């Protein structure tokens, strides 16, 4: 069945549905891979160049009953990091996009005035959105509620906050890298999708068997469906674990244990807010939690960074910070980490009472918020203390201290989008013991593990499936789902090879934009300062020599030179 994408030129208002060449889908699947491929001719443009596209892409499993596969990838170049950038989000948007007969939307150009792109099965139109400009995400989504699922930016995106998000109407976020600001610069306030088509499954028997295998593995996974797992408590189930493992970043990563963390643990949130389960379309895990009053409750990263990283144990203040970021359209990890770096620089972390007004100042670029809107690296440099930005490639590190998991330390620096835990997700085996456990305090073997996981997850992000599914299932079952859905032959190995192509393409783009081995580094603090040792667990500084040795191994495994560069300039020319 031919797949289509909608190409929208906001400058002229020109829109057209185009068939996606099947060979591109075979080589890149969809989602992240397709988005990265579609940037090929323009990857050196500035993120804010009108010609820089933003790609919304789903994967070949979207719209089928494949578990956790109704996810959207948004791909462009990040104004925060300067790297190629993608992020996936759940909710209903992806499903409704596929049901509108589209695998992707590519948006380019800058609209002369604020607009909403409205897509249905019958067609698409640009709607004036002057009355929505300056509005929060909640109000915007409400105003567009009759148009299906909504992806919108808030004031942060409009005002060019470098870590502004694209928010899904269901509360999910396309976060981290500031793609909200890219949409803001394009004057695109929101995209709505409201399709009604069904997606055929080529081999229903094969598909159903694979689906049953996936669900059985989900049930066998304590992380997913265990009574203490993410289905019950959401990702805040990790709060107690990270405290116990002594790797919860505290006070801008000066320490790794925060004694007030139990105030915002999974059980604490459930007790305080009567957290109820909510899921993305077709997802049986339902890890998202909503309060009895309908508010979207924070994820692990958010509670930990608005909590421990800023020395705050007030759960209600943390939830208010989450609410504010969601409505303003701002990434919670980078917002909290930027405030933390700024707090350490000025000698005092912000109090719970200060954080709310500061978040609004950031989103509207008022007062000190104007600098804070630039993210922690630029803040720390402006204050003359560059070492206080706990970031890699300008992307603030999430809530897993690298001194507590050496694979994570390596993966932070090899990530193509900057300091992200999800590219290789070694927390899965170093901490959560899935699919098997690895020794978190050794670098031995980690270079190969990280490389394989990066390739795997690039494929996962192109299917597009949720990483949490892989706490139980593996590419083995998802390759079967894909084969059942499309009728084409796929194996875990073939998917990893596709993932490798995607990963190397991203690295090549970054190299063309000036990134080198020098950018593949952790903040100096992790090599010179110990974490919070105790209870029989030692958290020493990371051995820089050993770290560097493993990074060199990683480059060799990737087929790169020891300085991290490509052996020749012809890589892209050899790719489909």
């Amino acid at each position: 069945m031919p797949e289509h994408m909608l190409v929208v030129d906001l400058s002229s208002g020109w829109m057209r549905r185009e068939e996606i060449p099947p060979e591109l889908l075979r080589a890149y699947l969809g989602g992240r891979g397709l988005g990265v491929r579609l940037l090929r001719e323009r990857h050196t443009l500035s993120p804010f160049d009108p010609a820089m596209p933003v790609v919304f892409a789903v994967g070949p499993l979207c719209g089928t009953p494949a578990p956790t596969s109704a996810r959207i990838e948004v791909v462009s170049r990040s104004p925060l990091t300067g790297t190629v950038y993608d992020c996936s989000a759940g909710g209903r948007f992806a499903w409704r996009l596929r049901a509108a007969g589209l695998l992707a939307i590519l948006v380019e150009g800058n609209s002369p005035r604020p607009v909403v792109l409205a897509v249905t099965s019958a067609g698409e139109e640009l709607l004036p959105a002057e009355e929505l400009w300056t509005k929060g995400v909640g109000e915007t989504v409400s105003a567009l509620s009759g148009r299906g699922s909504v992806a919108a930016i808030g004031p942060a995106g409009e005002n060019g906050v470098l870590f502004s998000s694209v928010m899904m109407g269901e509360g999910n976020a396309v976060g981290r890298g500031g793609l909200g600001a890219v949409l803001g610069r394009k004057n695109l306030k929101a995209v709505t999708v409201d399709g009604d088509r069904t997606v055929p499954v080529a081999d229903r028997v094969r598909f159903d068997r694979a689906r049953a295998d996936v669900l059985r593995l989900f049930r066998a996974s304590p992380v997913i469906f265990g009574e203490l797992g993410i289905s019950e408590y959401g990702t805040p189930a990790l709060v107690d674990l990270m405290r116990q493992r002594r790797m919860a970043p505290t006070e801008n990563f000066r320490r790794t244990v925060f004694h007030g963390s139990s105030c915002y643990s999974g059980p604490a949130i459930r007790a305080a807010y009567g957290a109820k389960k909510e899921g993305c379309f077709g997802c049986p895990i339902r890890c998202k939690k909503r309060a009895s009053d309908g508010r979207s409750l924070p994820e692990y990263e958010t509670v930990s960074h608005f909590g421990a990283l800023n020395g705050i144990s007030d759960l209600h203040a943390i939830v208010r910070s989450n609410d504010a970021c969601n409505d303003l359209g701002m990434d919670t990890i980078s917002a909290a980490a930027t405030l933390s770096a700024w707090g350490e620089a000025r000698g005092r972390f912000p109090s719970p009472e200060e954080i709310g007004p500061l978040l609004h100042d950031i989103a509207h670029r008022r007062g000190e918020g104007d600098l804070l809107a630039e993210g922690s690296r630029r803040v720390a440099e402006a204050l003359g203390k560059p070492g206080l930005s706990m970031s890699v490639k300008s992307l603030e590190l999430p809530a897993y201290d690298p001194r507590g998991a050496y694979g994570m330390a390596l993966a932070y620096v090899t990530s193509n989008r900057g300091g992200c835990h999800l590219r290789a997700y070694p927390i899965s085996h170093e901490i959560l013991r899935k699919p098997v456990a690895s020794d978190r305090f050794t670098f031995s073997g980690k270079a190969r593990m990280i490389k394989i996981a990066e390739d795997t997850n690039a494929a996962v992000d192109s299917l597009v499936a949720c990483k949490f599914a892989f706490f139980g299932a593996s590419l083995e079952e998802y390759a079967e789902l894909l084969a059942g859905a499309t009728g084409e032959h796929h194996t875990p190995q073939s998917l990893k090879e596709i993932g490798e192509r995607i990963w190397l393409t991203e690295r090549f783009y970054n190299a063309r934009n000036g990134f080198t081995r020098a950018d593949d580094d952790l903040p100096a603090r992790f090599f010179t300062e110990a974490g919070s040792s105790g209870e029989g667990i030692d958290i020493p500084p990371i051995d820089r020599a050993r770290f560097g040795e493993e990074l060199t191994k990683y480059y060799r495994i990737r087929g790169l030179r020891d300085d991290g560069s490509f052996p020749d300039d012809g890589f892209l020319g050899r790719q489909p």
Partner: protein
Amino acid sequence: MRSLIAKYAGKMERDRSVVPGRAGIAAQDDVMLSEGAPDLSRLAADVLSHLSCLGVVAASPSLPFAEFLLRRANPDVKTIVPLDTETRTFLHDIPIVRREELAGNPARAIAALLSNRKGVIAEGVGIVASGPVTLEQAYINYSSVFHACYVKYLLEVLREGFLLPGEGEAFRAFRETFLRPLTAEGLSFRAGPLDDPGEVLSEIRAAGRYTVERGLVDSFFGNISYRVGGTIFISQTAASLDELAGCVDPVPTDNRSTTGITASSELLAHRRICEATGARAILHGHPKFAVAMSMLCDVKDCPVKDCWKDCTRVRMLGDTPVVAGEIGAGGLAVRVPPVIGGPGKAIVYGHGVFAIGRDGFGEAFRSMVDVENLCREEYFRRLDARGGHPSTSVSHIHSR
């Protein structure tokens, strides 16, 4: 990496899943490393060079059951489906590759199959298994295939008798030489009840190790717990019972903390068993004869198709109840607690044995030994009754 290769080669010999000296293990870091029998380590490395994986194990199993299963299968059969539910959940099926398919480039032929499954049976070679994330995974997958073939072959022989030249002799050697008397003799257990966490952890480590050493579980499977007041100390998910140091989670019974998110997938079953029986010690293993015998059922024309999860009957093997139920968040945690209190032991259909100790692991361990001995005796009694010939009994094997 070389130390890890040596570790898993040693484990395979100690658990008697491999012919001594007939294992090859390869692992790739930035360079390829391989150790063991020259032909097998070379094959392991060649296979690994075709895969995006960390390690590969290629070994001759200590029992020829995998080879027999391959040769008993029709020529058009491409996979063997494990009958026990635990390995089937994770393996789905086991590809087989015949001698003629290995004639050209055996590594490429095996790698093609391993690109889609965790382990392969290669005729004339043995079992080849991969580890996508860690080398340990390759060892685990080898062990899983070995376990699955062991159980499946026991059942096939009981159902169909010996079909190939040499099978009868090999099986007799298995029965008379390979199998050892199974006892708890010589093991030392604390009497309990235990209150000191240090003492509890030490006893869990010892009992876990005994369970592996006496062959009641393959290293990677099984789980173990001990309750002290409002805390259940339980082995972590994906923990080897013979390597439990640092791999036991203290889980509060009131769920005030989620630290136990890394606990065994059977945490709920352990908790419910504690609640239903008051037992402090719980041991769960996968003794192979008990797994096999639990899948024999006398009911004819039963409407239940997925017996392993949907059967609601409580059957008896001697004095031990047998119930069905999925692992993890499935039905096992519902069906085991009501039946285990009286006899102190229960078998889960096609999965394994739960055994309890009111105060200590000695009682639980001895119960598990008794169950396995009973099942072993009953198995051979039935086999002898048929003279090794195809069964005409009403008993049948639920294979779904």
